[in-house]
């Protein structure tokens, strides 16, 4: 039925195109009407005409510049108002023309029609671009078939031609000629796009008792082509899922790395760790505000500036906490737990007072928006790629600090044997403060990363405290390497479970798994070897 309507529309429009000057106002009026089918028909009429007038009207339509003023259809071009039918300026300009707006399906039709018209352009780059855009988004292909035929005949370029062949194949899947359809399916079988697969699957559908595709040979060929495409999609699908796991893992790692120092190495149960993340995230927000008001040209780089600011802000808060509260409670884990929990409430309330109880908006800079398209069904979002790289960078920094610097050596010495370290002249009290500050600063860095993907609000830290402890405990207390493996492992496992059982169940399963694991192996994945003085 639909196919019939389209061919009817096409036939009508082809007749009409001969007497274009007469048909134009009718089509224009139909464009402005409320009737969806009439509007679709009007677009088909304009596409079939394909002349400069039609192109002008379609472009205006796609730019939302076409409007109705009284009885007339006009194009609004800045200050000027042009008559859509003739392109002449109307003087005086009519008051408040009402814009003709398109919905998704009409806009897609108009855009693909415009792209198809550009296939006939003299500029090679323009032809290539429009062919590629049509490949991902063709809309109702049958309308474009005559244009594609024409373009294919003219095209000489080696890169554009294969795309056109594929486009033509996509458009002619609905053709009434079975041989043409068979050829089309064969042409499509070497694609790797889910959109093409969906088209081919459409042929295999049943409508009532009959198949959409009446010819058995075409159906068999389509079945074969779907299998071929599937085998190409399976790898990109798997790597996509692996990436989401690594990305979640890198976020868990950033959240937990600070805790791996304060809890893992120093043994302080810091319930305010999540709030240190929050301090980092709010630093990013504050930097964004500063850049917006003082350096609007460089606003895209506020994230870079936020990194050191967040580190020092969180480190200062952490050091203040250590000096005032935690220092007096070393060796008393229960009191530490309660005191830091109280501190976390204080910090949440402070953020509420300073920034308000509502979430604040932290925008992704332009270079972190969008994604890297690796395959038709695999695009990796830039913000997540950047965060994965950033967590690697922070990890490297922490490793260097702990293993290659004098400070790192002191920290290790103090945590391994405090009295002996003190005897050989290590200022243990200062080292405690500094180590706690560094752990807190790293949590601040995690906060900057979180601000790019999650909501920033006063109680955002609460959601990460459990995850962070999970990572540190699972990895083995006192081990950086353990935290890395635990974070990545939890990330990947969570994502595969989510794909299989949904987000709610996945969360429960992971918690159950950790409880069971800790029962069996309380020391975590990596146990410290050697002698310790507790």
């Amino acid at each position, binding site marked *: 039925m*639909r196919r019939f309507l389209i061919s009817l529309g096409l036939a009508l429009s082809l007749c009409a195109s001969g007497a274009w000057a007469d048909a134009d106002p009718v089509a224009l009026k139909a464009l402005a009407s409320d009737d*969806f*089918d009439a509007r679709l028909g009007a677009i088909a009429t304009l596409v079939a005409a394909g002349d400069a007038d039609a192109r002008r009207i379609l472009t205006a339509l796609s730019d939302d510049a076409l409007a109705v003023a009284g009885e007339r259809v006009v194009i609004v071009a800045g200050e000027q108002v042009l008559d859509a039918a003739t392109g002449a300026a109307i003087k005086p300009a009519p008051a408040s023309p009402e814009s003709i*707006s398109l*919905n*998704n*399906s009409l*806009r*897609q039709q108009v855009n693909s029609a415009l792209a198809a018209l550009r296939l006939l352009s003299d500029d090679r780059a323009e032809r290539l671009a429009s062919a590629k855009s049509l490949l991902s*988004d063709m809309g109702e292909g049958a309308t474009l078939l005559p244009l594609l035929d024409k373009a294919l005949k003219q095209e000489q370029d080696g890169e554009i031609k294969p795309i056109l062949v594929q486009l033509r194949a996509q458009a002619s899947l609905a053709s009434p000629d079975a041989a043409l359809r068979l050829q089309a399916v064969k042409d499509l079988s070497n694609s790797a796009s*889910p*959109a093409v*697969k*969906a088209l*081919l*699957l*459409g042929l*295999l*559908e049943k409508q009532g008792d009959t198949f959409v595709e009446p010819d058995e040979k075409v159906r068999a060929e389509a079945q074969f082509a779907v299998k071929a495409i599937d085998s190409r*999609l399976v790898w990109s*699908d798997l790597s*996509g*899922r692996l990436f*989401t796991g690594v*990305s*979640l893992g890198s*976020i868990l790692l950033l959240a937990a790395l600070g805790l791996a120092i304060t809890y893992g190495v120093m043994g302080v149960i810091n319930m305010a760790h999540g709030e240190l993340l929050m301090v980092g995230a709010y630093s990013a927000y504050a930097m964004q505000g500063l850049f917006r008001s003082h350096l609007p040209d460089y606003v895209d780089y506020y994230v870079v500036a936020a990194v050191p600011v967040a580190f020092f802000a969180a480190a200062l808060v952490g050091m203040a906490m250590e000096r005032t509260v935690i220092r007096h409670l070393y060796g008393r884990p229960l009191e530490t737990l309660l005191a830091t929990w109280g501190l976390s409430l204080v910090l949440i309330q402070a953020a*509420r007072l300073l920034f*308000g*109880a*509502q*979430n604040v*908006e932290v*925008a*992704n800079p332009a270079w972190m*928006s*969008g*994604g890297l*398209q690796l395959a038709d*069904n695999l*695009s990796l*979002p*830039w*913000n*997540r790629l950047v965060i994965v790289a950033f967590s690697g960078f922070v990890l490297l920094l922490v490793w260097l600090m702990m293993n290659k610097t004098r400070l790192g050596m002191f920290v290790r010495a103090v945590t391994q044997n405090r009295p002996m370290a003190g005897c050989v002249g290590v200022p243990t009290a200062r080292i405690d403060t500094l180590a706690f500050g560094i752990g807190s600063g790293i949590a601040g860095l995690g906060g900057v990363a979180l601000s790019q*993907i*999650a*909501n920033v*609000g*006063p*109680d955002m830290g609460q*959601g990460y405290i459990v995850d962070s402890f999970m990572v540190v405990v699972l990895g083995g207390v006192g081990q950086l390497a353990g935290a890395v493996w635990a974070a990545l492992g939890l990330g990947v496992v969570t*994502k595969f479970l*989510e*794909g299989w059982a*949904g*987000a*709610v169940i996945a*969360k429960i399963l992971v918690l159950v798994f950790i409880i069971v694991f800790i029962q069996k192996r309380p020391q975590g994945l990596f146990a410290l070897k050697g002698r310790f003085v507790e």
Partner: protein
Amino acid sequence: MQTRRTFLKAAVLSASIAAIGGLSSSAWAADTIKVGILHSLSGTMAISETALKETALMTIEEINAKGGVLGKKLEPVVVDPASDWPKFAEKARQLLSQDKVAVTFGCWTSVSRKSVLPVYKELNGLLFYPVQYEGEELEKNVFYTGAAPNQQAIPAVEYLMSKEGGSAKRFVLLGTDYVYPRTTNKILRAFLKSKGVADADIIEEYTPFGHSDYQTIIAKIKKFAGEGKKTAVISTINGDSNVPFYKELGNAGLKAKDVPVVAFSVGEEELRGVDAKPLVGHLAAWNYFMTVKNPENEKFIKMYRDWAKKAKLPKADTVVTNDPMEATYVGIHMWAQAVEKAKSTDTDKVIAAMSGQTFKAPSGFTLKMDETNHHLHKPVFIGEIKADGQFNTVWKTKGPIRAQPWSPFIPGNEGKQKL
């Protein structure tokens, strides 16, 4: 501590309102009608509910400026249940038994409404609920000024299935894990089944409140959409999870022309926190859009903008109006009309006077409170997101339609349509 703080807050707020309204403190200490406002001002729902509190305060000020109700000024009592469902019941009890409010305007999530219901029934209070919801409920003490499923969800899905909406054949029902999305999806599943959509062509996905990692779900939608036939996503995600969801949607390159997402809990206010450019063309169904053109709406928008400036709201120059705000506005006015008609604030007398009340709403239609089912007759609009975060209406009903709180698509609901 908590009550003291909220008390202080309420006191400060009321004082500021008194100052704004230019009332002398003696004038309103004399005789006022107390009105409760029960919306989360912190936590995951604050993104949506804070604006409703502001709208309520604005409307109360508007009514007071015209002389109040029954010759008395209205006195707002604002409490913050902090997106914590049991606390909603606690605060509701406080409003009713301690503050003795005549009426409460409040709640957003259905779970919060379910949590306060027993309190309103027990103490015979009056609650105006301004948000679209899942239906399957009809309480004497509640007036529902938001949409029932047949005034939002069902028309939206019908639109998606029409040729105009892209002839969708497969559906992803995506929601936050609580009563509203679960019930709505149950109704939609039954509705889709009645339209001949097979079970294999529907998947349901739920996430916890405040969920922020939507990678897996977006990947799943992409895969599902790649398995043939046009796919659409119906989102009942609530609260601030919408921001990461739409961010991820934009970053993953899932365009509206391939897989349209129609949302029932995302309006102009929620889109303020997102860069709307990658979302152009995704849909929402509501009973009001800020872009609707009519004199009532212009007045409403101007009033709220002025209010935002006066109340010094954050980013007051970019405030927007949305559907639940309109429903709050309509609800307060209708309540005031009913009190005038009943010549009393007594719950039972006001309930009787509410039936058949009409109000010329900013949506451009005169809305009527149904005589029997406590729901408004509302028009339905379907809009596509524009680059500026506003909506372009692509479909609307000819006029207001009557609510069916008990969905006919759920067996056993026949004959339940009245109170």
